[in-house]
């Protein structure tokens, strides 16, 4: 049995109010999304801003409520749970966010932020908590003096390691990592990705790795889902996606990866054939499909 099974997942947001405040038109952020994630693998969700990747991640944890579809985590129907049961299940599904400067409380020493879940969920004493936190900081590779320091005093890489340590406090099975290295320097990005690979080996973690950057996917993921305007346009193993992408959209994402080869040294410069060359080619809300729902 897969650790995570998602079927027919839908999230709509009302964009226009009709008579008596009833929504007349909906923007479909996530449209009939289905996939599975196996225990111990990394599944990447790839797409541009607005593709519905982050929404999908949040729907799985029910941080936002889906409008339709099922999410089964380790056999449990997540949508059927009441709040206390959901809170308990969420211990096993943790999330890491893009911006560590805003995901850790600026007014709390980092040690307290990392250990807070141990207090909230297990009622551990402060001493026990700090001991356990120190162990976790060892695991993620930051020094103990960080415990007493505030987020503003740490670098982005240190903070993201602390955020990972916090996610690990609950010994989760699944970590949904939403652009966890997008805000980091290239050199630090490599450190954090390597750390995530190590932790996966050590603890058998399953990752849902959300990113707009396909170059990271090859490093971290086993399989990938490519999303565009709320829908899955392609999914497959990383090898398939990179070597024989079926969709033009996937090819355009691949073509956008900056190649670390100076232009003058490139043997085959220029765009990949078959990729749209609209001068701006950006996604606009008004060009995204809006489903009209009849009253």
């Amino acid at each position, binding site marked *: 049995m897969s650790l995570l099974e998602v079927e027919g997942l839908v999230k709509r947001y009302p964009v226009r109010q009709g008579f008596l405040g009833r929504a007349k038109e909906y923007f479909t952020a996530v449209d009939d999304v289905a996939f599975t994630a196996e225990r111990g693998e990394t599944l990447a969700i790839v797409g541009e801003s607005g593709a519905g990747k982050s929404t999908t991640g949040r729907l799985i944890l029910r941080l936002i409520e889906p409008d339709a579809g099922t999410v089964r985590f380790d056999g449990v129907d997540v949508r059927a749970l009441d709040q206390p049961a959901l809170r308990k299940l969420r211990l096993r599904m943790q999330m890491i966010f893009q911006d560590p400067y805003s995901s850790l409380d600026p007014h709390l020493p980092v040690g307290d932020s990392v250990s807070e879940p141990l207090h909230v969920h297990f009622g551990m004493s402060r001493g026990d908590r700090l001991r356990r936190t120190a162990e976790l900081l060892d695991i993620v590779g930051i020094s103990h003096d960080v415990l007493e320091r505030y987020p503003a005093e740490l670098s982005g890489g*240190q903070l993201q390691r602390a955020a990972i340590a916090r996610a690990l406090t609950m010994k989760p099975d699944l970590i949904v990592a939403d652009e966890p290295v997008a805000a980091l*320097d*290239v*050199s630090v990005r*490599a*450190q954090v990705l390597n750390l995530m690979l190590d932790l996966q080996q050590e603890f058998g973690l399953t990752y849902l790795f959300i990113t707009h950057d396909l170059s990271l996917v090859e*490093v971290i993921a086993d399989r990938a889902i490519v999303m565009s305007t709320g829908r899955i346009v392609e999914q497959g193993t990383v090898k398939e996606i990179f070597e024989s992408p079926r969709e033009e959209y996937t090819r355009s994402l691949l073509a956008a990866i900056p190649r*670390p*080869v100076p232009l003058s040294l490139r043997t085959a410069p220029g765009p990949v054939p078959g990729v749209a060359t609209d001068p701006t080619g950006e996604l606009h809300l008004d060009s995204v499909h809006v489903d009209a729902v009849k009253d």
Partner: protein
Amino acid sequence: MSLLSVRDLSVSFRGPGGWVPVTDRVSFDVEAGTTVGLVGESGSGKTVTALSAMGLTRAQGARVTGQVLFDGEDLSTLSQRELSTRRGATISMIFQQAIRTLDPAFTVGEQIAESVRRHEKVPRKEAWRRAVAMLDRVHIPRAAERAKEYPHTFSGGMSQRAMIAMALACSPKLVFADEPTTALDVTVQARILDLLREIQRDTGIAVVFISHDLGVIAELAQQVVVMYAGQVVERASVEELFLHPRHPYTAGLLNAIPAVGRGRRLVSIPGNVPAPGSMPTGCRFHPRCPHEVPGRCDVGPLDLEDDVRCLRSGELTLLGIPTPTGVPS
């Protein structure tokens, strides 16, 4: 003569315990019409160097020494008043977060028109016409209508285009582009880089492109200046730098780039950039360097020699990208 020649630019900021040096005798040249990549991790002094070259840190009370020769004129001797007539008109800047740089209270067109009128005595109507033309120039669709809109209606990529339009409205000869694509999606980044290349081809503007990502630098630059902990550690042509890096830090940055075909496990640079005021002695990179020799790398002042700041560069063979024949297409 170079268009821009930065000579021994050192910048210090006032800290609780006195002046804290942030950059140390930074020197580099930019030829007209070319792109120089200024690369390094956060905290290496790239942005401070750019801001100081434009006289913007002096205005904030920083102590700046050295020279900034632009078109034969030493900008570092000019008053703030004189400088403000140069900024925007002959030398300009694009920032990382365009959406925060644009004023939310004015339409995009008004902001561009204002920057035109600041430098050129033209009627309002003419300035507006120029603003629309610039938005069109950076490929914003329906430019005349979009000019009347406020920044919040612009996506990340669109506001960066608007920023570029504003920076280029008075046809400057040089623009500092400070991580202009870092906050953007990879696909949007690729289009902004295309736009910068196109504008450079058409106008011959010189660009100093600041980035932590050598992958992006490879897309644009002809010359590269690598900075670490406030100092220049290597200067080279982009080809030389990528094929034969001479400083271990440069090699580290190259190896950290996730690139198609490299597969799993990146080579990271361990540790962090040291904070200003607590720089290691000797080579500032030695605590993080895989080639460090105790007693040699951690002592004495270390100068830039033959464009590289490493005692061991002559004896090391550092790995760059594969030579052109081996470059995957």
